[in-house]
């Protein structure tokens, strides 16, 4: 009997479980990645050469554009494949973490299923566009050196 109780027509989707876990893991990873990049920038560039704004921008989206305005030598310190993939990883985590948060809030507050589906679709497109923009900035506009 025990095995059958409550087993009728339940969705076996583990999406919510995975997104919940992802939110926790990505939150911690973003802090670690952000901390590493800002420590690295300070070791290379040294304090005083990058202003606070440049450091913050660099910490959470390490792309060489963000340090070109400072006195730090961009090449070869910042403009290389390692930082491109590092930047992509950090951006992927942040964009997905944030977009999933909005998805969760929409699910709480939007009652009409049709409207919710449209808003989710819009959200997905926004997420995809942000990702496209990040890939363009990191790999095309900047170019692999």
């Amino acid at each position, binding site marked *: *009997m*025990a*095995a059958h*109780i*409550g*087993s009728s027509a*339940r*969705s*076996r989707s*583990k999406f*919510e*479980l995975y*997104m*919940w*876990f992802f939110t926790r893991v990505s939150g911690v990873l973003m802090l670690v990645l952000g901390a590493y990049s800002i420590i690295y920038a300070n070791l290379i560039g040294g304090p005083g050469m990058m202003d606070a704004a440049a450091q913050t921008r660099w910490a959470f989206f390490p792309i060489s554009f963000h340090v070109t305005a400072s006195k730090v030598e961009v090449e070869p310190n910042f403009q290389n494949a390692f930082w491109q993939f590092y930047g992509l990883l950090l951006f992927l985590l942040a964009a997905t973490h944030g977009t999933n948060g909005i998805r*969760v809030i929409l*699910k*709480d*507050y939007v*009652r009409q299923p049709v409207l919710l589906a449209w808003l989710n679709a819009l959200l997905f497109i926004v997420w995809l566009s942000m990702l496209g923009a990040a890939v363009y900035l990191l790999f095309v506009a900047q170019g692999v050196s």
Partner: protein
Amino acid sequence: MKVKVKVRRFNPEKDHRPYWGEYQLEAQPTDRVLDLLVYIKGYIDGTLTFRRSCAHGICGSDAMVINGRNRLACKELVKDVGRTIVIEPLRGLPVIKDLAVDMEPFFRKYRSILPFLINDEPPPYTERLQSPEARERFDDTTKCILCAACTTSCPSFWANDSYLGPAAIVQAHRFIFDDRDRGAQARLAILAEADGVWRCRTIYNCVDACPREIDITRAIGEVKKLLLVE
């Protein structure tokens, strides 16, 4: 001491919208809020409606919003809530009259998580023995009195009443972590749905509201972790 009691009143047969009933009365600092309500009903306005049964914090009938917080009227003392006491019905459940809300949506969720021992194995000659350590595992969640204070303090539940709510998850936790029970998989399948534990945003209102001091958010977290490793 003189106290002013403001009660959110609503009689669906007479009123178009709720209004505030205001009552001035003499009270002792050690009186309970429930005593004030009983006094108002007995001596000032007999039409005031509220639930109460044991009046000792066990039956869970008189949960209400007292000065903005979900509390049992029988456990709140006048000296702790001040001279102006504002009392409203629980939020998120339909009001039947004055402070009495329709608890059926709450109990429907409670029933949905199968709140009973599930075990197919033939019972032993005496009883299903359990070690003190195994009993300790779910001791906290056995304290629940189903007063609905937690569920009706939860913003996720206010926003979307399809959420199971903290009380139902606490009750599921009580059986999932009971080593005599064999129904964990069935309950976990229910809790893993979109309207199950994932709607908990760890806001901790439920922990503040619980008159039995159950660590509710921790219990929900334990269910989430169990779902992850299952």
